[in-house]
């Protein structure tokens, strides 16, 4: 059973990605993952095992799209380890529930720690599988498969910083200014450079939301400093 599914997955990978024409090495990618995953699935009971089986299958079905799909792109380079690490971190978090969750004395038999621990353990197994896949991909050497598109860090960090700043300032500055600031910063990150017009649009947008939601729908948005200055 297992080998057939693997073959199908490989076929899907090759079909989806004309660039990875050397289908033979590509075929190896999901293979190591499938075996330990099935082994790890059994303690988890029915819930996690069932999607495991079906998900393998969906991979087999998805041969159609011709456009490069990030979901079928193997991870390469150093960044390949980021998501396995995130998965492992979530796994450890789940397992840490065994220590941090205080079970009330009269809790019924599968207590509150059981499910987090099971999910955590499965996540660690998955992280290990991803690591195996990564090692295999790396051993194949620089492959024909296209790498993930590069991240433009500067604008991304600007958007993120704007979100963090808006969160921090909303209570103090009030919605009108915070909303406008957020709008302006995100527009800037997306390449708007007509600062004056951007600022006017941002303020108009923020004000429209304030009027629409505060007056029209009775949602109270924080006034912030403007509330102090205006009577």
């Amino acid at each position: 059973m297992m080998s057939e599914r693997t073959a199908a997955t490989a076929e899907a990978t090759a079909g989806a990605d004309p660039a990875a024409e050397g289908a033979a090495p590509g075929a190896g990618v999901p293979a190591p993952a499938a075996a330990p995953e099935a082994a790890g699935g059994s303690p988890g009971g029915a819930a996690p095992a069932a999607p495991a089986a079906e998900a393998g299958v969906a991979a087999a079905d998805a041969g159609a799209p011709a456009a490069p799909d990030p979901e079928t792109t193997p991870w390469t380079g150093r960044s390949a380890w980021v998501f396995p690490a995130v998965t492992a971190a979530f796994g450890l978090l789940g397992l840490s529930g065994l220590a941090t969750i205080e079970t009330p004395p009269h809790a019924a038999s599968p207590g509150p720690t059981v499910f987090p621990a099971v999910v955590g353990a499965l996540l660690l197994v998955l992280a290990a599988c991803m690591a195996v896949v990564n090692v295999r991909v790396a051993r194949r050497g620089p492959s024909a498969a296209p790498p993930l598109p590069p991240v433009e860090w500067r604008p991304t960090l600007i958007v993120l910083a704007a979100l963090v700043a808006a969160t921090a300032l909303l209570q103090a500055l009030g919605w009108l200014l915070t909303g406008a600031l957020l709008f302006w910063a995100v527009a800037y990150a997306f390449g708007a450079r007509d600062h004056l017009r951007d600022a006017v649009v941002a303020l108009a947008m923020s004000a429209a939301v304030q009027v629409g939601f505060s007056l029209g729908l009775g949602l109270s948005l924080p006034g912030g400093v403007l509330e102090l200055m205006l009577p």
Partner: protein
Amino acid sequence: MESLSLLLGGFANALSPVNLLWAFLGVLLGTAVGVLPGMGSAMAVALLLPVTFRMDPTAAFILFAGVYYGGMFGGSTTSILLNTPGQASSIATTYEGHKMALGGRAAQALGTAVIGSFIASIVGTLIVALFSPPMVALALQFGPGEYFALTVFSFVAIAAVVSGSALRGIAALLIGLLIGMVGIDGQSGAARFDFGLPVMLDGIDIIVVTVGLLALAEVLYVVSRGNAAPDLKAIKTGAPWLSRRDMRRSAGPWVRGTALGSAFGPIPGSGAEIPTFLSLGLERKLAARREQRGGEPSEFGKGAIEGVAGPEAANNSSAAGTLVPLLGLGLPTSATAAIMLAAFQQYGMQPGPVLFERNADLVWTLLASLFIGSTLLLILNLPFAPLWAKLLKLPKPYLYAGITVCSVLAVYAINSSIAHLVMAVGVAVLGFGMRHFGVPVAPALIGVVLGPIAETELRRALAASSGDPSILVGSGISIGLYVLVLAAAAFPVLSAVRRARARKAEQNAAEPEETPVA
């Protein structure tokens, strides 16, 4: 036939010029709120509920129905145009819908969504009106074991959207399950993963997860791609009407989606997510089979109209279906239903088995209002579908800045709480990472929504049987569901075998073996 005459009585109550005006206003407001990225029907209803408290019940229900359907359509609009669904039930629409929009067929995608929603809500509401009592009886058959089987089934259903590695899909699902565990555990009262913060005790709100994982993560993803991201402005909005071919290809998915939604809607806890994903998977398989048999090629992955028509119909008919447990059992099974319950109680109505006897006139008025609401939605939004598609013509910086501001507003509006914003930004970073590394986001969201139900019901079942797992397969319903799960899992394995054989045959002889896949 008695219910039919009662329904006509409801129409007599509901149809007056003033009420039609309320319905019109409701659809307009609902669409306007729903079309804001990150906001869907639940948000629209929640925001507009306080307004209805000052009105008489009939007018309030009419406004409500309009807002509900408007909000739902608005949520789908943003899924199609901007890839930022406003509610969990429109996620399935994004897959083909956004691809259609990118391919210059935004107006057609919106058109098929509107008509599909209309057909589905009419049929769905009619089914509720005519068959409520037997459906309530069926819903009462669902014990913890059956619920658990249902959630297992739905975890399998989401595989329809995992296109790449199974590992990544399962990891996303498990991460979602873990996020869903944050907060007070309903079974034992123990606090889980609260990190000592009181705000975490309530768990991570589903709106926070939706907005963070989908809307804000989309903004971050698009900005991170720089100029490589698809330019929405360059998209042609195309001819505004559905061609005959579009209609023909939508008709089947509308019917099948409506059937799926009506079947799953009344089951408490199933939500609209399961039928929408099932419909997407079904339509994809049927299209592939049609291609195999020499019919039109499947357009799935490139913007197939079937992938919009089916899930949208399923979404709306299951929304009507959720009225069954709400009215019949007093059991709200979705965020919107919970808000509607609050509205009922405002008027001194207690939904439950006796509601149909005690407040019959109001119930039938509500059902009639739903018909009116969905009809007005069709009348209002079908002509405006091309107009909404023009949203893509906004300058990209302003469009995404607007999405960001609306998302922040949507999260803040949940509880006027900064803590929710902090969580949303955290979830957005996670979502961005997942998008960048090609990890599917939908399984994570399904995990957050259905994980708590799965866990609670499993533990409740085991507690009831004092630890004997045989209770999980103790009824025909659950056995039937597990059989479906196994069938769904075995099916593709079998088709893989066939495909492998076909490939071998292809290598041996020049002619490929004629085997239908799936």
